[in-house]
């Protein structure tokens, strides 16, 4: 005796993006915390030491936030004008920031008043950074110059006047105290060595450079400007390695994930893209509500902080990992687990006679009803809210099975207003889905056949029928448009194909399904529509 074969639920290919390990990793963040700042958030920088506070530069203030705090733990307000580029020193003790008023200020993270004021630039200073020996500061300004300052005696050490436009980004090397790179709106990147008076390398980015990033190994340099993110090999004399064009507006900020395996870029097009640094393919994408100006990742990727033009700071924290959860659950279960462990540890001896337990076949609710030939009940269970909403393919599979058994009419008939409206709402939700259309159109026709006589008796059902009608009209228009587009494409393909002497028609290397489906779907809809009009 064969056991009952459950209804076959077809597995449809998942539409949209594929679930990969990357998406799982990058999706594993909580809903963002949003903090309103006083102005556009132009820079975010994490302190390199615990407790990994981060400095948020927005308008005339710099806020220091703790990793998990929602309120600033400290605020620096002594700026006359818009502050720029608040950065920590590698020991996390000092913070430097430029300002629209051309003065560079150096703060102690515990103090309030600036320790040093570096005056010398004539225009706004957008770039500040500490060199790796911790005693010098690099600044870059809109007056086309960049300078090195000595912290102890606040003296200007050197000035480089090589750029021909605003300097808007720069980084210092973490391995060599004399090296730094600046990027400018004159489309160029320049690598400077403090030991000589000129730049040692010039790289043309091709667009105004908005952001720069050095890899931890400092062999590769990443620059962002225009819609492009470009990677340069410094060891090969600034040879271009790869050019990424994945944003459709200016890329404003760059960040590296903690292990250096992923590169993140934020753009004015409101997306943050995550690239794999070996293949330079986009592996994940975050959407934000406004144009992104600044982006930073906490150590270990514990949180992603994004600043936007609408002066909102968005902080996403990583969800606690699964292992932590599991160990917690483990401890609770321990006593009962011991009991079972004892029973499970029994190993049958060689001459033991094993009595196998008959395996009970587990059937879904609708299958149980189908097995008993209760067709109406089977349809009812398949139309339960949860299944209907989450897994319409199950409901459709049950309808298809009923149709195959020739009992779909019986199952659909004899329903009251509530049940009928449930059916209709399911049809409205799924009728235009190309995967379900063939099955649901037969069902819809049957419903119209059966319930023709009661049209006009219930306002609920009438309303839904009208809705269904308008839906079909829209779908028809849509299909018509699609067919037109298809026709246009066909002529284009035909003209672009090289002339082949042999008379062969219709060669297309793509999957032929979409074409076919669109044509065979439209006719039933037509028929349906004419019926609904009646």
């Amino acid at each position: 005796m064969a056991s009952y074969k459950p209804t076959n639920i077809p597995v449809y290919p998942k539409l949209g993006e594929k679930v990969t390990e990357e998406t799982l990793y990058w999706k594993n963040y909580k809903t963002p915390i949003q903090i309103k700042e006083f102005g556009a958030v132009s820079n975010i920088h994490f302190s390199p030491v615990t407790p990994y506070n981060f400095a948020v530069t927005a308008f005339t203030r710099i806020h220091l936030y703790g990793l998990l705090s929602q309120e600033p733990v400290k605020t620096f307000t002594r700026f006359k004008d818009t502050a720029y580029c608040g950065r920590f020193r590698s020991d996390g003790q000092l913070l430097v920031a430029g300002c629209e008023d051309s003065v560079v200020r150096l703060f102690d993270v515990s103090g309030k008043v600036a320790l040093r004021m570096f005056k010398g630039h004539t225009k706004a200073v957008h770039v500040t950074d500490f060199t790796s020996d911790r005693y010098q500061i690099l600044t870059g300004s809109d007056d086309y110059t960049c300078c090195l300052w000595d912290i102890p005696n606040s003296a200007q050490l050197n000035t480089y006047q090589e750029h021909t436009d605003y300097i808007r980004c720069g980084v210092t090397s973490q391995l060599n105290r004399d090296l730094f790179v600046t990027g400018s709106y004159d489309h160029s990147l320049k690598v400077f060595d403090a030991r000589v008076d000129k730049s040692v390398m010039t790289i043309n980015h091709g667009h105004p450079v908005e952001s720069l990033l050095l890899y931890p190994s400092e062999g590769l340099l990443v620059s962002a400007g225009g819609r492009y993110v470009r990677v340069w090999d410094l060891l090969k004399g600034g040879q271009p390695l790869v050019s990424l064009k994945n944003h459709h507006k200016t890329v404003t900020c760059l960040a590296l994930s903690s292990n250096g395996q992923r590169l993140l870029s934020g753009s004015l097009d409101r997306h943050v893209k995550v690239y794999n640094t070996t293949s330079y393919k986009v592996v994940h994408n975050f959407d934000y509500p406004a144009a992104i100006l600044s982006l930073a990742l906490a150590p270990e990727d514990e949180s992603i902080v994004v600043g936007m033009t609408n002066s909102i700071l968005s902080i996403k924290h990583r969800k606690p990992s699964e292992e932590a959860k599991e160990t917690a659950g483990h401890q609770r279960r321990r006593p009962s687990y011991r009991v079972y462990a004892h029973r499970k540890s029994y190993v049958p001896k060689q001459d033991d006679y094993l009595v196998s337990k008959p395996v009970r076949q587990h059937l879904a609710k609708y299958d149980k009803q189908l097995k008993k030939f209760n067709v109406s009940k089977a349809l009812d269970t398949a139309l339960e809210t949860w299944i209907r909403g989450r897994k319409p393919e199950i409901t459709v599979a049950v309808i298809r099975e009923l149709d195959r058994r020739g009992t779909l009419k019986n199952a659909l008939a004899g329903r009251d207003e509530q049940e009928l409206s449930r059916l209709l709402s399911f049809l409205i939700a799924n009728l235009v889905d190309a995967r379900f259309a063939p099955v649901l159109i037969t069902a819809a026709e049957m419903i119209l056949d059966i319930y023709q006589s009661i049209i006009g008796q219930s306002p609920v059902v009438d309303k839904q029928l009208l809705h269904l009608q308008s839906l079909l009209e829209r779908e028809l228009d849509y299909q018509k448009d699609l067919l037109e587009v298809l026709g246009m494409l066909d002529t284009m393909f035909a003209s672009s194909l090289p002339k082949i002497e042999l008379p062969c028609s219709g060669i297309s290397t793509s999957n032929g399904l979409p074409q076919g489906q669109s044509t065979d779907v439209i006719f039933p809809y037509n028929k349906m529509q004419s019926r609904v009009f009646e």
Partner: protein
Amino acid sequence: MVEHGDVRVVHKGGSKINFREPALSTDSRFLLCASGESVKVFSTATEECLHALQGHTDLITGVLLRPSNHLQAYSCSLDGTVRLWDFTDGILIRWAKSNRVNIWCCFIYVWTVHLHVCACTELFQLVAVHLPQCGEQLVEAKELSAVLSNISSNPAASAFGREVRIFRCLEVYFFKKHKSYSFFLKKDNQKGGKNTFTCITCHPTEDCIASGHEDGKIRLWRNFNHRKEYTYSTLHWHHSAVSSLSGTNLLSGGVESVLVQWRYNQESQRDFLPRLGGAITHISVSPDGALFCTSHSDNKITIIQSCVKVSAVIQGLVKGDRIRTDLMIEPRSKALVLNGKPGHLQFYSLQRDKLLYNLDIVQQEYIHESGLEQFEVVMAAFDASGSWLATVEERKQKAPELELNLKLWAFDDQKQSFVLNTTISAPHEGRITALCFPHVSDGQTTMLVSTSRDGHFKAWQLAAPAHTEDEGPSWSCDFLGAYHSLVPECCCFSADSSLLAVGFQEVVTVWTPASWELLTTLSQPPGAVRDLCFGRLSCSKYLLGATTSRLLCCWNLLTCSLEWVTSMDVSLLLADPLSENMAAFCFEAGSTDLFVFKPGEPRPLFSHKALCSGRVTHAVFVPREVMLESCDEASQWLNCSHLYFLTQSMDLLTFITKAEEDKLTASSKQLVVSDDVAMTPFHLLLGKHRDHSAGINEVGSLTLRLNRFHRPTCIFLCSMFVQSLLISKEEEMESEKEEEDSDGEMESRISRPEHMPSGESGCAAPALTKEEVRELRRLKKLDHSWMKGLLD
């Protein structure tokens, strides 16, 4: 069959086992069923076929246990004979032949007291045959007395009870009184009731008759000894015709394939055994009631324990009304593959004549309801290495609602079976007309081509998963081809898979699968191309096509020109995978002829006129396990492969050479001798006996005239018999004297064994144990009278 040289057409396996109700032996150990021209004896425990009782020359129409001896069974056949068998050993005891010429036995019943067999003649009369009790093996049944006439030819419509015999339309015939009563049901057709009788059975001990009806009702008749005062009660569960009834606890079955057990006198209590397979055609119960067995329309016998649990399934080759798939050979197991149960493919071992397994293709619950359109497997194809199977299933023939599924199955080494890899729903908009894999000898197959009525052919490609997280490779569409919106009917890959030929009605297009370029077109109007086939090996430059205008064309692909053309109505064109030979089945004047030829040679290798009536549409070359080395010209083409084909009446036939046949018979003779020589425990026991053969050598004479009911196997006796004949004259005399002594009282023999062996062999043989002596005595009693025939 027409004899043709030394190549003969023979039936090969797959006979029906569900034709008539099977019989269960009294001890429930054996199951006898009529299977073509032989009666097969199955073991109920192991499902194994123990032996086939052969001797009838036509279809066997009934098997019945002999009530007076539980080790014997009667069988009757359309050849007009009734035979009595000892089924444990597979020996024919007697057979009876009617003196009337045109008698067919349709079914058989035994009336215990008189020991006669009732058989049905062509006039549908029930006749009683008295079998005279005599020693002759062939008896002529002279006393034929017609009992009833105009009975139904369906055996289910008549039944024999304790003292009554009853027939269709409820005519009760009392055997003792020689009277018959008829009862009729009112034809109440206004309610749509179809109360035609379909089957009938009698309670074995009580006066109760159950009848099954077309409308699914069962009526229990009682008190039918009187013409007027009969009563009946109605049971109803089945939704359409009840096809079989049986047993003390009434068992019923029908099209729904549910066995229903009704408790006697408590008819509201029922036990069900659902989903048994095909429609139940017969139910039989073992005499002790321990086992039931049901025959199903899909050539299956299910053995069921009386606690309503299936214990064994004996499955024959399922031959539905129509085979939609081609005959195929699974490259791994060399099993024949074709449509089986609805929605399944069956894998049938030709060597062992046994169904290996069924592969569920549709994977849906089968609803037993007539008129319901079900998914059917219409096409299947294996790739060359047997690692992929492609199947097409379809439902509803009408074009707008056609449901099509293309499924691809990968062979799983662990499960040793095919596992579903990809399901493509609606692969084409029209019905699929052909499906083929390229013949890649090394490495993996990664392509499949399907042609469809929608005017396209599609190439499907096995693609690696796009993401590493996906389970594995799956198939997707790679290329969509068409030619002037003509309908492609057939496709074929060349031997090295570098070319694909697709027949678009009258035009054959040749494509290269590497770049999907159309290389050339060939055509031979008028008439659409029906079948395409590339030559193999040295003939691989030839492409053969059969057209609907009765032409067989051969194109040379090197010159792209027609090589030759001949006029024949080819219904099927096949290429032998191991040689250059091609087989063409031609339909000519109502029957099919076979031509076997090489594309490059003008003369056919073999031709066979009038192979069978009707068209042959399914045939297959089955590679041989061991190549033959026949040099005979007419049978040379059978060296590499067998050729099997299905006739219109669904008989599986094959060709056999004389040499092979000789070998077969020789090996069956060999079997007897070698069985005897084998070092089994029995041999050791026998060998010992043979050493002291003095005690046994009288067996030879004894065996010839003893009780025929306790006869050991032929093989066992044969050795004894031969042994006894080898003993010298005087020894024989001596032993005969001895036997005369011992004939009267057996006890004396037990005391004697000590001196007996020493007197004969001289050597120091060990004394016989008591058990051995008992064994010897038993042997002496055995009946060996049947040997007389052999000696004569």
